[in-house]
């Protein structure tokens, strides 16, 4: 196992497991007035960070290893979230404001009499769980099919992924789309019969998020260390050369992009029950770009760095917006500028540089990657 994951990977997983156990114990086993007791809202917050970390992993998989910078990964995250949200809406049943056993409140409000076809099946958890992966995956497959086949690369791809999420945001804002329009989906009651407001459910969701992050990390690490991973890095560093060597570059990219979108969908699905709401603002291009900066802060192409970057930047965000809300955009903007200018390999690169002053050749290739990837 550790041969596949590497020492740092095993350390990361161990740390994650330790953190999960510690959080659950501090929340569940300690009395509410104990000094180390972790209140429920913090468990939810940490759970959300873990979902962000999974999203960051999915971005790092394609950006760090295949050189595809997606500025629309928030769209896949949100689609997964909507799939979960639809299941949670159907679980409300007749407890909604209008008491309709089948139709969610917003549909009753819009005078709809029948459930739209795309809402069918979402009363079953297994179906929703499948859709969490399939919906973003299918969109990514269709999008990537067109984009990669016509060799849209570099900043062009980034811009049209941004346009994609922007278009989806506009579409989901429409009431006629049947996803709750402006207000999105909210007022969830329970998941698989467990009330969402209960502390135990929250702790369980946190553990599920940690598990998903761990599994996602193992998957990405395994992919990166496989032959597929080698081809990916080769595509990043010299796409034309790989193509001339006879590799179907488009297929590799497409598989990776779809997989990454599905991971982002899972992250979104775990995020929604903890956040308690999903609305079209999740599709905002700014969200997707912020997710990219998590990866850049942590260290592109390092996986561990991406996850840590997401958690660190999100924690920073929570702290700064709590203390000085005006300052947050300055801080985030400065982060973007400083990281790209002075820390091209992120925090992980910085740490590696301290511990091993002479950079390994492999690390050097990460440095030069963007120069060729974006042309």
């Amino acid at each position, binding site marked *: 196992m550790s041969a596949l994951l590497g020492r740092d990977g095993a350390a990361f997983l161990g740390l994650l497991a330790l953190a999960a156990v510690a959080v659950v114990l501090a929340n569940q086993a300690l009395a509410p007035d104990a000094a180390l007791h972790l209140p429920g809202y913090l468990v939810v917050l940490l759970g959300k960070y873990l979902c962000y970390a999974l999203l960051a992993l999915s971005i790092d998989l394609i950006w760090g290893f295949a050189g595809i*910078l997606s*500025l629309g990964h928030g769209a896949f995250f949100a689609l997964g979230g909507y799939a979960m949200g639809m299941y949670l809406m159907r679980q409300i049943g007749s407890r909604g404001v209008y008491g309709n056993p089948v139709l969610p409140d917003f549909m009753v409000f819009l005078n709809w009499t029948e459930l739209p076809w795309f809402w069918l099946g979402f009363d079953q958890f297994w179906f929703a769980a499948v859709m969490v992966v399939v919906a973003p995956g299918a969109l990514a497959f269709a999008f990537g099919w*067109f*984009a990669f*086949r*016509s*060799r*849209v690369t*570099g*900043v*062009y791809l*980034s*811009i*049209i992924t*941004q*346009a*994609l999420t*922007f*278009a989806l945001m*506009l*579409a989901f*804002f*429409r009431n006629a789309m049947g996803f709750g329009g402006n207000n999105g989906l909210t007022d969830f009651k329970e998941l698989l019969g467990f009330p969402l407001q209960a502390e135990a459910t929250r702790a369980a969701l946190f553990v599920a998020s940690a598990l998903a992050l761990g599994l996602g990390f193992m998957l990405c690490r395994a992919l990166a260390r496989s032959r597929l991973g080698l081809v990916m890095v080769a595509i990043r560093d010299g796409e034309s050369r790989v193509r001339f060597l006879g590799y179907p570059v488009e297929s590799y990219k497409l598989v990776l992009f779809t997989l990454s979108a599905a991971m982002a969908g899972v992250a979104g699905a775990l995020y929604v029950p903890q956040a308690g709401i999903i609305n079209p603002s999740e599709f905002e*291009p700014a969200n997707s*770009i912020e997710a*990219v*900066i998590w990866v*850049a802060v942590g260290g592109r192409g390092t996986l561990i760095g991406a996850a840590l970057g997401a958690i660190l930047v999100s924690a920073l965000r929570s702290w700064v917006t709590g203390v000085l809300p*005006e300052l947050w*955009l*300055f801080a*985030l*903007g*400065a*982060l*973007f*500028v400083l*990281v*790209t*200018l002075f820390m*091209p390999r992120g925090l992980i690169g910085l740490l590696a540089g301290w511990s091993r002053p002479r950079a390994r050749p492999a690390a050097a290739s990460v440095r030069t990657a*963007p*120069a060729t*990837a*974006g*042309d």
Partner: protein
Amino acid sequence: MLRRLGIALLLLLAPLTAAAQAPAEFADLVERLGRSGFAETEQAVQGLGAAGDPRAVKVLEALAAGELYLRRADRKVAIAVAAGDGLALTDAATGEALGQAATREVERIRLNNSLRRAISAALGALTLLSPDPAVRRSAADAVFKSRDPASLGALDEAIAREANARLRRALEEARAAILLTGEADPAAKRAAIATLAARGDRDALALLTAAAAGEGELAAAAAAAAKTIEQSLELWNAGQNLWYGLSLGSVLLLAAIGLAITFGVMGVINMAHGEMVMLGAYTAFVVQEAVQALAPELIGLSVLFALPAAFLVGGLAGIAIEQGVIRWLYGRPLETLLATWGLSLIIQQAVRSIFGPTNRQVVVPSWMAGAIEVGQLQITLSRLAIIVFALITFAALILLVRMTRFGLAMRAVTQNRPMAAAMGIRTPWVDAFTFGLGSGIAGLAGVALSQIDNVSPNLGQSYIIDSFLVVVFGGVGNLWGTLLGALTLGVLNKLIEPVAGAVLGKILVLVAIILFIQRRPRGLFALKGRAVEA
């Protein structure tokens, strides 16, 4: 029923009685307004209408508004407006002030429906025959809208007297509207249909559609006329949409043209470009406030002062960004994208902290306000000014790139940097100024946008994605492509919008562009040759 008959009778008699009356004294007629009995008042009203004294307009309007009073003490007719506890009186006949009066000292001259009709007919007659062409014009329009049969007599007289051909047509259209909706013989109605069909606007269409509702030959004629109008209106409508599209296209062109320099020519992806536009708009606001404070009489020209100022602000900000951030990231487009996005967040928040999060108003100068009508087209002057301005900016830029030494250096550096450097061109210097030029144009765009959009910290954000799409669609590195791309996207947007709705239209355009980029990944006008892959 009796009442209706009475009204009809009065209407029939109205021209007769008016004609029978000798041109009585104005003052006498006004005095008669105050005598008891509706019939007496009505005769006086008709008399005023027939006498054609322009002073009567004010009196009749006051009467219609219920502001005409009778002073109990001396039975004098007075126009009264509320003042303090009581009323301020003005002699209706002479216009002299009569001082204050308590409400119980006066009595309002009461109205009934028949009297109201008589007033509007008399007013119509007075204004239709007014010596002032503008008054006649608005009177004709008012009659067209009210379609009051009582105005018919005055209309006929006005048509006979009218020398101005356009005005006569307006009067005839008003007459046709009355005839078509009221009682008239079929020949007159048919003539009315022809007149209205010639007018050919939405009001005429409404009248004709109403007339087409019945059975018979006349209804068929009206239906045919309505159909013709509908078809021509559809054409005008398409023209109007085309105009809106051109207007949107010129806005996109202004926002994208600077990007075409920085992204298209230099290959630097600047996500803070929208913020340069926003800075330009705020410069317009600051200049306006400064002009307001220092030289209020020049406020109409503040937009013109703002243009060079915004160019400087945008350009200097651009050079600062290039020197501070972008030049360290040349050859790493994805990193440049992220760093400039961060800059855009900082600039937005800085502007929000300084100017506040709310919208700021930049006043449209009076010479740019208003609209002109061409046929059925509404051409807003500010939009027209922006189209002209966008085209001038574009032409100036083309000339700069093609004709000047700086343009030559710019093209040399972008085509082959090492060779240009070897020829003695200072490439870092050219980079900085090229970027400054693109950003300065963004500042100009901001001034233009401040005239038609809200000036808020988010102004740039709403244009940045569109601008990138324009540049990518038009073909990177090609200014003509940007022009065509902007206009195409603008027109496409506005032509789809009425069919699919604003939001869906935007989505469709986005999807269309995404599909288009699949077909031609390098835009409409792709650069050819080896330089593309370099």
